[in-house]
């Protein structure tokens, strides 16, 4: 694509959309090569330089044990966003797959799956997250597990209703008449038509899951310190909020910016698909 076509495409975009594209590019860089942006170690402790405000040496200041916050926040990008992306992916595969089968096959399987999903839905997402990580204990694995379980019903429902609608279309009937097996119709014909719905749901849920991830980190139920994670840094900053506000400011801004960028992308996709 030439510079001209990019400019032409961008000229149709709103300022908010352009901003979100820029943010996307910036976060991509931070995820792929954080050490180029922040060469300092995110883990190196220097008690002599604890709780220093932002300066030329430490752009974002230092935390209570003298770690460089710029390095910590930058290096946390990959960890925080990666955890959320991975958890939602697991959720999408599991919930989407289950929803596809339930919607396409219907019957008892559909009924049972819907009941199981209803159990998860009885709790508000953050409460379900607190219950799961609280009982199983903090740590990255349990955090991912909790997020994957919490968002499973949303993927299940969207894939189920998509598969249900598709299963009544003429092409399915035609495939059946041609002698294709049910499993083959479901996976090769129906699934590709349900996939865009699941993808859109993924993008829409991402900012929400990010909030829950950060909240659980903030409650001390997420990634264990000293691993850099935005929620965990916020948890650490909470105790120093009135003496060292900068510990809390930056991870929150990064959370805001990444959720903002994904949310704008979700809106664009929704409008494209004509459902928003």
């Amino acid at each position, binding site marked *: 694509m030439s510079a001209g076509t990019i400019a032409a495409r961008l000229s149709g975009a709103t300022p908010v959309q352009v901003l979100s594209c820029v943010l996307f590019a910036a976060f991509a860089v931070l995820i792929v090569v954080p050490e180029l942006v922040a060469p300092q170690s995110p883990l190196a402790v220097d008690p002599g330089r604890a709780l220093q405000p932002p300066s030329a040496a430490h752009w974002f200041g230092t935390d209570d044990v003298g770690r460089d916050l710029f390095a910590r926040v930058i290096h946390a990008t990959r960890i925080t966003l990666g955890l959320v992306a991975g958890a939602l992916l697991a959720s999408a595969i599991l919930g989407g797959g289950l929803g596809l089968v339930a919607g396409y096959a219907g019957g008892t399987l559909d009924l049972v799956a819907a009941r199981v999903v209803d159990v998860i839905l009885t709790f508000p997402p953050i*409460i379900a997250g607190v*219950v799961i990580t609280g009982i199983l204990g903090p740590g990255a694995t349990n955090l991912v597990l909790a997020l994957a379980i919490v968002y499973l019903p949303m993927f299940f429902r969207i894939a189920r209703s998509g598969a249900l609608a598709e299963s009544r279309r003429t092409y399915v009937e035609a495939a059946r008449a041609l002698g294709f097996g049910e499993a083959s119709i479901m996976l090769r014909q129906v699934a590709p038509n349900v996939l865009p719905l699941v993808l859109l749901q993924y993008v829409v849920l991402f900012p929400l899951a990010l909030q829950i991830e950060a909240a659980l980190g903030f409650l001390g139920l997420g990634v264990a310190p000293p691993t850099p994670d935005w929620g965990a840094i916020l948890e650490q900053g909470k105790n120093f909020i009135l003496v060292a506000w900068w510990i809390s400011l930056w991870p929150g801004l990064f959370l805001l910016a990444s959720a903002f960028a994904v949310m704008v992308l979700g809106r664009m996709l929704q409008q494209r698909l004509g459902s928003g």
Partner: protein
Amino acid sequence: MLRFLASRLASSLLAAALSSLVVFALMRAVPGDIVAQMLGQSGDAAAASALRGFFGLDRPIHVQFAEWVGQVLQGDLGRSWYQGKRVSLLVAEAFLVTLEVALATLLLATLVGVPLGVLAGIMEGSRVDAAIQVFNLAGLSAPVFWVGLMLLVGASSILGWSPPFAYMPPSVDLADNIAILVLPVLSLAVLQAAAYSHFVRDCMTAELRREYVRAAIAKGLSPARVHFRHVLRNILIPLVTFMGLILIQILGGTVVIESLFSLPGLGRLILSGIQGRDYPVVQGALLFVVAIAIVVNLVVDLLYGLIDPRLRP
């Protein structure tokens, strides 16, 4: 309508019962219970087994669950293993705190969010609309507790004011109570106002494209009359549903804010119960949260009929 409500209620109750069972089993399946916490590393086996017998933890899980369900059906949620108080009392006290925060948040968010959304919808495509949309997206993107932290910093550095540390019920000292709740409610309201405004804007723009709006304006009705008498009335239904959703969300979402501002609400009760492995408290409080969500959803269903006579039974 009645049959619909009854079947909704039945499936909700089934889900509530199953979720209680899952939480019950999960808590007991994971290593580390209240006895392990009380005795620590040094606990000897005889004391541990005696304590487990005291709490009834030595019996099979299904027996424990059956007993708990039996109690609940008689309206007894048991007693906290740590505090010895009735769980129903603890839940009621905590719920009043959370409810006060939630209602104040809902009120503030509605008062700010709905007009913003209506304005943005009417002025679609204008600068005002763009500014409101940026507020919506930023409000939805900012973590609630981070907004709370920043408000704390702002209040202390700009106003030289910090909220009191200990929670005070409104019946004891109303001024102190309000002083404590200002920041938590503000932090929650930013998110919910943004959510409201976002939602109302979408409803408005979709509604304004409908034929009857064009017809009404062609007929010579003033745009203001069309907007406020016709369009607004038509988006009331999605608005009420959304209000129910938001109320449930606030009731659950306060857990982080309660932890930040040391409010003794429901979320904190659940969290401390889980951390202390105080099973009766966790079971009782979660059951209560689930029950509230079911009731709110049912009320929303009933309100439909009130707003739109066509949906009445």
